[in-house]
């Protein structure tokens, strides 16, 4: 996920990384990792410290100083891209910029195809 600040709303962190912050730690599927930092603030404005969480969850945090942005990469605990067979919720725009959520197709079988014009 791309960020221009190292403090982001909890919801943004969770949507971007797939890790949910729960009382028992940061969780993805059945896996929970204890964390020492808790979100600060309250309600929908709870903020998290990305650098600290990246360190605790071994997520790579790389920056482009000139552009003033960071990219927070994925976890690699499981040695495989998928930690569980539960599908991640891909959210992307269509040709006209309308956002589409893969999860909107629950109830149907889906063939998800990656292609490119190059």
């Amino acid at each position, binding site marked *: 996920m*791309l960020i221009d600040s190292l403090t982001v709303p909890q919801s943004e962190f969770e949507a971007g990384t797939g890790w949910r912050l729960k009382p028992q730690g940061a969780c993805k599927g059945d896996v929970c990792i204890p964390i020492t930092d808790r979100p600060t603030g309250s309600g929908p404005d709870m903020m998290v410290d990305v650098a600290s969480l990246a360190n605790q969850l071994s997520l790579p945090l790389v920056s482009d100083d000139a552009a003033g942005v960071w*990219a927070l990469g994925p976890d690699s605990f499981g040695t495989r891209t998928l930690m569980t*067979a539960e599908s991640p919720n891909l959210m992307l725009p269509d040709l006209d*910029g309308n956002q*589409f959520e893969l999860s909107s*197709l629950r109830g149907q079988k889906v063939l998800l195809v990656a292609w490119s014009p190059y």
Partner: protein
Amino acid sequence: MWQALRTELNPAGLEIVTVALETSGAEACRPFIEAADPDHPTLIDQHHRMAELFGVVNIPNGVWIDENGSIIRPAEPAPAPPSIERPAANPFAGVEPPKHLTDIMSEAVKIQTSGPQYESALRDWVANGPASRFALSPDEVVARSQPRNAEAARGQAHFELAAHLEQLGRHVDAIPHYREAHRLVPDNFSYKRQAWSLEPSGGELTGPVSRFWQGPLEGESAEWPYAGDWLTEVRDMGAENYYPTWRP
């Protein structure tokens, strides 16, 4: 490309979603999508988010997901059905193509795919669901998904920065991050194809075919910003190994 299969299998409960891994964005994809005139969702993935989430390392790739959102087969080569007219399908009618491109085409024809097997497996799963012999267990889905170590994860973050800078029009600033992505995730061929395809093509090519040059211009090897290029890497690996063999 996939529309005919979608028309056939949608009544039986299958939806197809195509995702264009294309940092340049929607306009580079539009001619292909409009030519295919699909009924199914067609998404644009400028940061190769699908690669990061699902372990796609080359294109085309497919992932099967069931009615409950469980992955049934992780990312694997998914040859596009050979039905469609691509725009500029024969840009060289009556003209001698540049040698670099004929060299690429002579490698490309050696690439092996398993389209008919893949399509019949898909039909079997749509008909039989979990009872299909092509439906994998959750453990097998995880085990067959692409390996990812800490270096690869870091490389994916660099690719995302490169894609971001590209979209800001800062191509030159993006190159070091593409290079890091290539170094750290060497088995991700779409990261390479993406970056190579954004460099100038030779032979006065225009239109979609110019994206396939993916290498230094004649006599300008020193200016090429990447460690590899399509023709050299495919010759080194052997075109027949371009895609892993499809396993039922």
